[in-house]
């Protein structure tokens, strides 16, 4: 492992590479309006205090981050031209771009980086609280150098500096007044390729081209309009008719995707979710008998028919999950499949485990009953619940389904722990420290905090693996720690990892180069152009 890492390839290099690869530069015409559908409408446009998904789909075009990432999750330059990590991993020096300006014309400097990280993200961002926990100060020796000083090494930090995750804010605007109720919460000002113009609630957000963008000649599009359409059939109709051009993240129902893909003017891709890596899972309440019994939990994991759910509930958009960490992390070495619950004789194994655990089948064919709570995120989750219900019935467990609204469900699972099995949907995010540890670390058994350790299972051994991996800067050593972690967690099975969900993104073929990063529609569309 190198002590010094330097991001070498600049935007110019990328452009050259595109030229050499045969992409004719003349094809990238300037002009055109791209209409994106985002569902649901974002509550506000303040990505520095809320990580609600729809917000990022809009604001990632307005704010740049210090870095961007390629499809191997490797950092690429953005507002930081280059960076250097010290040998002990506790000092990170960013060299900032000199020609970057905010939309109001003021230059972007290291003071903005210091303000954004120390005053905003570290204190108010839901994930920033932990992402930047180790950062003690940001030093600004000159306007174009920002130095992060860390208490302990935090390798995951380097994956969380995109414009979506850690947007760089102008200090002279957001530094005035209370950041939590800031008047610019709905009028974002950044350095990004598109300027915020107008948000008509219930209708659209309009973003116009930033003519002074620091990337020479970009963006190509004149305008992006993000529309909000509450009804899924209408969203499909708008794409079909060409009134809207891009939609992702389940904005189009899975059963309509095939129909749209068949149309000549629409393309469907599943790229652009590599840094999000959603996993569909079942959380088991490990304090509630009989789920406190590891054999029962393993039996349920064997019983769940992952392939059936992928093919029939998610129309083929997914693959079986073999670990709490997504296979998207394979290039980094953090993904190693755990216990294989998809073996051919899984039903026999499940029945045997349940017999051994002391729950024989009774006269009515059932061993015991429980309630299965369903993630209240829409129709496919209900169908997934029905699939789980059927699978459990096969091994003699009678499950009743319960579907509530989001607020009630969150309280049930993460505050009251008043559940047996609940489906769930968690993002791995850009690094296991950010998205995976929360699922089963003992420190994250916290009533009232949502999307953390709801199963309430933990062990000192797995806690230790995670604590070491958090500060381990050597990728290979981290990989080894995660290998042990995955083996232990999948064996104990407090959470059943069902499938790695892939989302279809629908793109009108008139538009090219829209999805260019592992953040997909959380990208900035600087390179997108209309033919």
């Amino acid at each position, binding site marked *: 492992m190198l002590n010094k890492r330097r991001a070498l390839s600049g935007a110019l290099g990328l452009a050259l590479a595109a030229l050499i690869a045969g992409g004719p530069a003349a094809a990238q015409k300037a002009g055109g309006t791209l209409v994106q559908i985002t569902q649901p409408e974002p509550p*506000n446009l303040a990505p520095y205090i809320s990580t609600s998904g729809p917000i990022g789909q809009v604001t990632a075009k307005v704010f740049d981050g210090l870095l961007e990432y390629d499809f191997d999750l490797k950092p690429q330059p953005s507002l930081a031209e280059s960076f250097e990590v010290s040998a002990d991993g506790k000092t990170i020096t960013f060299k900032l771009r000199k020609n970057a300006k905010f939309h109001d014309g003021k230059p972007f400097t290291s003071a903005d980086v210091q303000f954004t990280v120390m005053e905003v993200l570290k204190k108010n961002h839901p994930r920033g609280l932990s992402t930047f926990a180790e950062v003690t100060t940001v030093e600004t020796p000159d306007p174009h150098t920002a130095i992060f000083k860390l208490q302990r090494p935090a390798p995951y930090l380097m994956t969380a500096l995109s414009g979506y995750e850690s947007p760089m804010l102008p200090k002279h605007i957001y530094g005035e007044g209370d950041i939590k109720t800031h008047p610019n*919460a709905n009028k974002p000002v950044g350095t990004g390729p598109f300027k915020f113009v107008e948000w008509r*609630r219930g209708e659209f957000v309009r973003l116009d081209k930033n003519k002074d963008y620091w990337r020479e000649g970009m963006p190509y599009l004149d305008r992006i309009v993000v529309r909000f359409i509450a009804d899924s059939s209408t969203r499909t109709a708008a794409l079909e008719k060409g009134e809207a051009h891009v939609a992702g993240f389940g904005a189009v129902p899975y059963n309509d995707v095939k129909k749209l893909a068949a149309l000549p003017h629409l393309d469907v891709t599943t790229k652009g979710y590599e840094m999000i890596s959603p996993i569909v899972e079942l959380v088991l309440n490990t304090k509630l008998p009989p789920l406190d019994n590891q054999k029962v939990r393993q039996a349920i994991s064997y019983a769940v028919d992952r392939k059936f759910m992928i093919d029939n509930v998610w129309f083929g958009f997914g693959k079986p999950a073999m670990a709490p960490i997504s296979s998207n992390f394979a290039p980094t070495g953090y993904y190693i499949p755990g216990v294989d619950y998809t073996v051919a004789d899984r039903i026999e194994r499940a029945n045997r485990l349940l017999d051994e655990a002391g729950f024989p089948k009774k006269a009515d064919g059932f061993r015991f009953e429980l309630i299965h709570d369903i993630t209240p995120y829409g129709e496919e989750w209900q169908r997934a619940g029905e699939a789980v219900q059927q699978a459990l019935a096969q091994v003699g467990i009678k499950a009743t389904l319960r579907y509530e609204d989001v607020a*009630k469900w969150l309280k049930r699972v993460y505050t009251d722990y008043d559940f047996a099995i609940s489906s769930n949907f*968690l993002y791995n995010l850009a690094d296991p420290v950010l998205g995976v540890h929360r699922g089963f670390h003992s420190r994250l058994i916290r009533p009232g905090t949502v999307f953390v350790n709801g199963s309430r299972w933990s062990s000192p051994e797995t806690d230790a693996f995670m604590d070491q991996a958090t500060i381990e800067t050597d990728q290979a050593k981290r990989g080894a720690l995660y290998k042990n972690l995955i083996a232990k967690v999948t064996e104990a099975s407090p959470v059943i990892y069902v499938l790695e969900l892939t989302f279809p993104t629908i793109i009108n073929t008139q538009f090219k180069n829209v999805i260019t990063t592992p953040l997909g529609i959380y990208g900035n569309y600087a390179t997108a152009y209309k033919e």
Partner: protein
Amino acid sequence: MRGAPLVRYILRRLLQVVPVVLGVVILNFLLLQLAPGDLATVLAGEAGGAPKEYIDQLRQRFGQDQPVVIQLFNYLRNLLTLDLGYSFRQSAPVLDLLLDRLWPTLLLMVTTLVLSLGIGLLMGLLAALWVRTWKDHAISVAAIIFYATPLFWVGLMLILVFSIYLDWFPTSGMEDVVAFYEGWDRVVDIAHHLVLPSITLSLFYLALYARLMRASMLEQRGLEYVTTARAKGLTERQITLRHVLRNALLPIVTIAGVQVGGLLGGSVIVESVFAWPGLGQLAYQSLFARDFNLLLGIFFMSACLVVVVNLIVDVIYVLLDPRIRIG
């Protein structure tokens, strides 16, 4: 009867509005307390999880760490100065959010009212004139079909036929977001976008008015004053238009007034199918987000709207039927 007494009457009715609206606000406030989960949890949920400190911080900001009685008291006190509070989820004052949505809502409501009343009354009138002929049956069957078809289905079918296949109208939204027209072009563009949603919403109500109008006309025609009028030597046309129609309208006006509240509710579906930026959708979203400040604001505004419309209905009564006294 006209003039000064009418003004006094309106003023007195407006005063009576105060306790009604106050009652609505307090009742809604207490009802909302019964919903499990709160805005802080929903916000944290939308964020994909957040530390406990963050959620506590949110609750404190929302004033949810206070007892319910104090929260209610604060809310009412602010209401007196027309301060409807701040929507923390939408990071904007509630009043601004409501006013933004008010005019699209009114546009859709008024168009629907005019369309459904106009066509509904005409259909009912014709059915009554042609009573027990095939034309009457045709109108009645059509009305029943409109009445029984779910709104969302009608909306989607209209999109499919008139937008996708025939390409006459846009699928959704209130204006063209690629062109962004200005001036008269914009008015035309908005009207173009208004056609499908207002037809969808009107179909349901016009069926109701048509049925009611037909029954009301037939009833009035059997009354003695019609015989008197006929004995006076008036033509059938004069009797129908000047006497029967005017009397038959009274129950329709009553129902139309009551339906305005329902129109707000029915438009949730139409608004979401056609992505129309009205109050209904806003109410729907804020309920699921437990954004109570915003929700209470919407209830407050709807209550005011319904009360005012009913006042207008009462005034129309007086104008239609001089026998009805204000007092």
